[in-house]
């Protein structure tokens, strides 16, 4: 293992500090009693930590409801997105379906500014009665995460040699069987990675949730809006809720760390 020069250690150390300080301060704020907020010098380690902000955030501000809604919507959308995305990606990878144009169309969905799209969707949902429903949100989030799922699985499938599937076809398997029995099991790691990415994208999405949900299906990020009221921001509660929503994100993020490279580089890595 190489020994790093001092300069580099310093740089990495500073950067780690940069990453950790905001997270630490947010955590501390969530367990500080309100009287400590205005203290000068600022209090970095509270003497009497309290959980009152957590209970306020989860119950009085209905953060728990938001959490449950986010879980329901994100898990469902992730499942659908992983499923349909895998199917589509296999089709692209093996058969080059639709050539460049279909692939381009699917990928470009990712880059549409939500603000351009949300308005017509809001109005259409209203007509179809999908506003503030789980079904409406799940559909929206599935479409929202499809491009990345497709793209990740596309890269993954291209990395799996065709030989085994072709052997199966020669043996008389149908295309569907060769997909199901051979390609799919090999793709599981990639599907898991794609699913984790999709889940995190749904879990952290704010804009669509802001517009398309209301009192029944509001998601966790939208609860933060309640903390912006004119009566002074409730910093303790906001921090508590933030810490709560960080937990799945960080756990899943660490799990996917290995796949991160592959997923983000989308098959452009050689070797």
């Amino acid at each position: 293992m190489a020994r790093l020069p001092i300069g580099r250690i310093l740089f990495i150390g500073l950067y780690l500090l940069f990453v950790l300080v905001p997270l630490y301060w947010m955590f501390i704020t969530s367990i500080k009693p309100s009287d400590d907020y205005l203290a000068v010098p600022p209090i970095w380690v509270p003497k009497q930590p309290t959980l009152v902000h957590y209970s306020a955030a989860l119950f009085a501000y209905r953060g728990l409801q938001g959490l449950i809604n986010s879980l329901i919507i994100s898990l469902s959308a992730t499942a659908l997105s992983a499923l349909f995305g895998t199917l589509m990606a296999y089709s692209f990878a093996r058969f080059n379906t639709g050539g460049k144009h279909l692939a381009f169309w699917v990928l470009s969905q990712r880059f549409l500014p939500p603000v351009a799209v949300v308005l017509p969707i809001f109005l259409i949902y209203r007509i179809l009665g999908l506003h503030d429903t789980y079904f409406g949100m799940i559909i929206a989030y599935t479409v929202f995460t499809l491009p990345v799922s497709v793209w990740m699985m596309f890269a993954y499938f291209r990395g799996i040699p065709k030989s085994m599937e072709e052997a199966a076809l020669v043996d008389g398997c149908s295309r569907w069987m060769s997909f199901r029995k051979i390609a799919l099991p090999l793709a599981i790691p990639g599907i898991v990675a794609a699913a984790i990415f999709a889940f995190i994208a749904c879990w952290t999405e704010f804009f669509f949730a802001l517009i398309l949900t209301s009192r029944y299906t509001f998601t966790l990020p939208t609860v933060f809006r309640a903390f912006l009221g004119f009566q002074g921001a409730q910093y303790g509660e906001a921090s508590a809720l933030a810490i709560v929503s960080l937990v799945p994100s960080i756990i899943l993020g660490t799990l996917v760390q290995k796949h991160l490279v592959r997923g983000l580089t989308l098959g452009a890595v050689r070797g």
Partner: protein
Amino acid sequence: MNDRQKRDFEAGLKAEVDAWLRGEPTRRDFIKKFGQMTGMIAVAGSIIPATAQWALAQAAVDLADPSTPLGKAQAAAMKASTEGPADGSAYRAVQAAKQYSGVTLNMTYEAGLQALDPRNYSGPVWEQLTGIKTNVVELSHPDQYSKPVAEHIAASGAYDILDIEPAWTPSLADGGVIAPLDDYIAKYLNTADLEDYHPLYKALPTYKGKVWGFFDDGDIFALYYRKDIFEDPKMKDAYQAKFNKALEVPKTWEDYAQVAQFITDQMAPNVYGAGHFRKAGSPGNQYDFLQQFRANNGKFFDENMKAQLATPEGIKTLENMLAANKASIPGNNELDAVSLWAAWLQGKVAMIYSWPPTGRMTAGYSQSDKAINFIPQSTIADKVGYAIVPGNPEHATGYNKALAADSANLDAAYLFMQWAVSPPVSLSRVMLPYALRDPYRLSHFKSDLYASLFPTAKDYLRNLNNSANVGLLDMIMPGWQDYALSIDRMCTSVWAGTDPKAALETAAAEWDVTTDRLGVDSQKAFFEEYKKLPGSSADHTVEKMGLAVKLD
């Protein structure tokens, strides 16, 4: 009986038993109740005697000790609701609402302190009286406008009762978000209620000849100042020496900035001359600007409905506000109303002008309830004087209770509104320590019960009444929300360093766009109507129109 009723019943029973054990004349009630419990006597709402019902209510809701003024007001409210007078609005509302028992009403409220009233008092009491449940939806102030509009566009029926700024009435009425109340009023209301309003507030819910809500919160700005500082001999001498004038509570905005700066110079960092709530979205900037602008004789529009903001009056207003900012507590530009209250209560500020709860908090009355635990204790209770804001005070927002047009429970919703704003019930609500609802009825201002809440309560009420006599209204016209947003944005950009003249011109241009969008001619017509209201301008106040209310 379902579980909840059973619990309430037993709680009430316990109260009855205690009373009986003390030998009080409730034996009859006790036996009756016992009989009911064993099923011998039918439990119908109207059979349970009023006092028993009240006992039930007291057990379920945390009512105040009946020997206190608040307790008396609450008892009077309960009595009016359950016994009558039979033609009183409270009684009629409760009777008519019982058929809707089991329904849930969704009501929007400003998040935080405002929402404590329906959560802790009016909601649970209403449920006790009628069996109608209430669900409070807490929203930030700007969201109290945009959320109902969004829900209306989505046709969701999410809300039944809306708390709205009276100035939003034209937009919301034209947009179909709220429903007119005239039919319900004819059916259920004792119209004497409508005469019990202070003249400044009476016409607020009317628009295009119909009534669109019940006014419910007298948000008149008043000036609260530290008597001890103003009467301190050393300060008085120093001021006299410096300015060749006596140190007094300021009557003009120039004086205000001068006095504030003087106090800051003398006493910082322990005490600063003033503080304001300047944070964007915390509704403060637009009201403050508009009150001072009109005090300086500014006019909103000329005869062609062109905005008249970028005028010498506008510049003068912004310059005064900047001078006041300079003299204020550090962080002034990021404060919202609650943070400012915290600073004021801890004695850090010598003058503030803000909403009426200031007085109750200063006297330490509000903090007497554990529900309001995020307001600090008052350190200045006996050191405060009340005055009228320099020039004319703004009636800043206020609240109407309005009926959501998409509600699935229109009658039940309306009846709650009627009950909550009826004179006896509204008195008990504005007297709640944690209430942010402020007195608005003549019966409130004249109430002896209210005047006995804290030592200076009578003066406080008188000052609110006198402020309302010279108060100014927000512009009650379509598009008010857009006009207000332009002012708020203009102010925050000036606090951040933009040149006042440029900012005024930008705001005026935005006002013109809004006016054009809505139609210059129709806006002109609305503006003419608005100008007839008492409080539309400094020379058209309640007092100038000869309608001033004199309290003793």
